[in-house]
């Protein structure tokens, strides 16, 4: 009340300047406290569900701990890491994973961008088409794996039935070394091409129309417009989609588990599938933790390199 009274004086400026600073500071502190209160549940959840397990896994990765055998976790320092990096079994799985990531992501990028480009040129039914294309992405990978397993069955699968009606022979999609990994790539592509398509479509929609109009006035060909306007403007966004997909593909587990169980032999065992076996068949928790940490490191390093390239692209 005294403050409002002072505002009625002839020196309002003076009155304002004499507002006690302590009150303002206390309000700021109160805001900060409120912010902490609001953020802390999410922060605690993040710490409990992500940060703590990661740090715990990091600790276990330097030990010989086994979750089932129990007992103390003896420090073996970098022995788990050196064993993993020197293991021929791990090298084999790394190669399989690399082939899978490159094959699946490349195919999805080409198909996803092509579909997005074709949809972006349509004026009618664009929304419906986009929604329909997105359906596979909304399904659980386990469900996708199960019905593709039936579809790819050599004896009664619909794919071989269609090939048969075309006069072609039966293909052992999931039980031959040459076709099993290819089948995994095809199934993953079926499910995740829409993701690339969605991102590419967002990029294509954002390209300013006046650029195309200017190109039309200059009588630029379709290919010229695509090469010099569309692709350069969509490329950075597309690369981010590729990054997400590559990380996802790198840690592929579910489709392998359902479709091939890593077979024939171990020819479709990815790194994630191998970690699962190390962790749960022999319960070598220390080794599995080191394996997981190494996989995270690989993703972080590759992502950093990739982001630098993206930034450079932006600067250029």
């Amino acid at each position, binding site marked *: 009340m005294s403050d409002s009274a002072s505002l009625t004086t002839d020196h309002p400026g003076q009155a304002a300047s004499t507002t006690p600073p302590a009150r303002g500071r206390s309000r700021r502190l109160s805001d900060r406290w409120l912010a902490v209160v609001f953020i802390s549940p999410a922060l605690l959840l993040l710490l409990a569900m992500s940060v703590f397990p990661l740090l715990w896994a990091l600790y276990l990765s330097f030990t010989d701990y086994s979750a089932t055998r129990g007992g103390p976790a003896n420090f073996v320092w970098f022995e788990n890491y050196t*064993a993993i990096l020197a*293991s021929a*079994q791990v090298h084999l799985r790394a190669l399989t994973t690399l082939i899978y990531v490159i094959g699946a992501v490349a195919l999805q990028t080409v198909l996803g961008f092509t579909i997005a480009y074709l949809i972006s040129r349509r004026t009618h039914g664009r929304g419906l088409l986009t929604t329909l294309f997105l359906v596979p992405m909304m399904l659980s990978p386990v469900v996708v794996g199960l019905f593709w397993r039936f579809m790819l069955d050599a*004896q009664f699968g619909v794919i071989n039935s269609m090939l048969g009606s075309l006069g072609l022979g039966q293909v052992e999609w999931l039980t031959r070394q040459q076709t099993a990994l290819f089948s995994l790539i095809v199934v993953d592509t079926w499910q995740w091409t829409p993701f690339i398509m969605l991102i590419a479509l967002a990029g294509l929609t954002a390209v300013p129309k006046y650029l195309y109009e200017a190109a039309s006035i200059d009588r630029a060909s379709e290919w010229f417009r695509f090469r010099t306007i569309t692709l350069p403007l969509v490329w950075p966004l597309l690369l981010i989609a590729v990054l997400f997909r590559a990380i996802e593909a790198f840690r592929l587990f579910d489709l392998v588990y359902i479709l091939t169980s890593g077979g*024939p032999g171990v020819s479709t065992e990815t790194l994630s599938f191998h970690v699962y076996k190390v962790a749960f068949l022999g319960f070598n928790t220390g080794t599995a933790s080191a394996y997981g940490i190494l996989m995270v490191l690989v993703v972080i390093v590759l992502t950093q390199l990739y982001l630098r390239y993206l930034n450079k692209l932006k600067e250029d």
Partner: protein
Amino acid sequence: MVTTAVACGGGGTESSAPKAPATVPELTKDPLTLSFIWFDWPPAHALEDFANAEYTKERPNVTIKVNTVPNANWHDAMFTQFAAHKTDFDIPILDSQHIGEAVTNGNILDITDFVKKNIDVNAYNPYLLAAYGQFPQAETGKRDENASLYGLPLLGDTWTMIYRKDLIGDKPPQTWDEMISVAEKCQADNPGVSGLAFHQANGSDAAAVTYNTVNGVYGGNLWDAKSRKINGVLNDAAGQEAMDVLVNKMKPLTAKGSGNWFIDEVNAAVAQGKACIAFNWIAASGALLDPKQSTLGTTREQILEKLGFATLPTQKTNLVPLGGMGMHVSAYSSEEKQAEALNFMKWFEQADIQKKWAAAGGVPSRTDALESPEFLNAGPFNKVYADSVPRMRDMWNVPEYARLVDIENTNVNAALNGAKSPKDALDDIAKEQQSVLDSSNRKGGGGL
């Protein structure tokens, strides 16, 4: 319940399994659910129905729940809970080879004293009692009276040969070589029908059991248990011959794309009339007689006119694979549930209950139940089981079992699907399994 940690003698294999009391403690009168864990297959459902119908007559406050998981997750589902030292099941149904891992980790109760006081051990074929409960394993096929017991038989099982009487005649082949030539002829005479159907998948123990069966029949050995030697034993001349027979003689007689077949796929091939001769676990064969699932006839009798069940053919030996499982008591269950579990086991192993279990579709282990009309008349394959009991051989029952079987599964599967030559596959199995056994106490990098 008072439990103490004890050391298990023999074999240098340490046990940290807590001991169960010799007598069943006082049981609760409050409502109680006794939970089992098993994989999803017909005997699991039969057990739940049977136990709820019969055990509740004695213990009306108890409900039996048999939780099931897919076969491929069975080991993980049990041992991840054991790792957490907290289980949502009271009676884990372990494969005989899981016992070593569970005992050395202290996950299940040592019921040696309980068995001595409550179970008539002479009522069983000693090997069955040993296979489903004893650790260290009964290497000789005979029960070691001094070894500790950690489980009691729940379901006996072995492979049966299923053959098409209408295609190859009423008399089943007697030797393995004869079986192959009969299947070859049948396949040639009946386009669209494959000569053979058997487990080849690389999940669970599918392909491994197939190779182990052929290995046994051709006189091979899985290992020398005393010296823990696999390399040089498994891949000796007999082992090589078995792998050659499996990959080069048997595999060409199977359906295209059957390289990932397991129990259900083999049953489906037989039920659809697509196989002349098949091999499957007896406990999973009941569905073959269901007209709703078969194209071989509209009644059980019509189906049985076409399908025959026989013991496995012999060759250099007459060995057959030991299947089936025992029931155990989780070390992490509450005291009242452990008491109820022990009471259930005592009840289940009675002669009249075993016969009722047989009539309900189960495969008992007590000799009197195996010889009873209730069992022998319950299914056409039950006599096959009774005749096969003296011929059984199990795999390694060691804590490293899960890794050993995975190595064998993946390599046999690779050989069957052309990803490896038979010789390379067998040598790799022997080398990798030996390395697992030799590195049991390795510090760092274990499990790769």
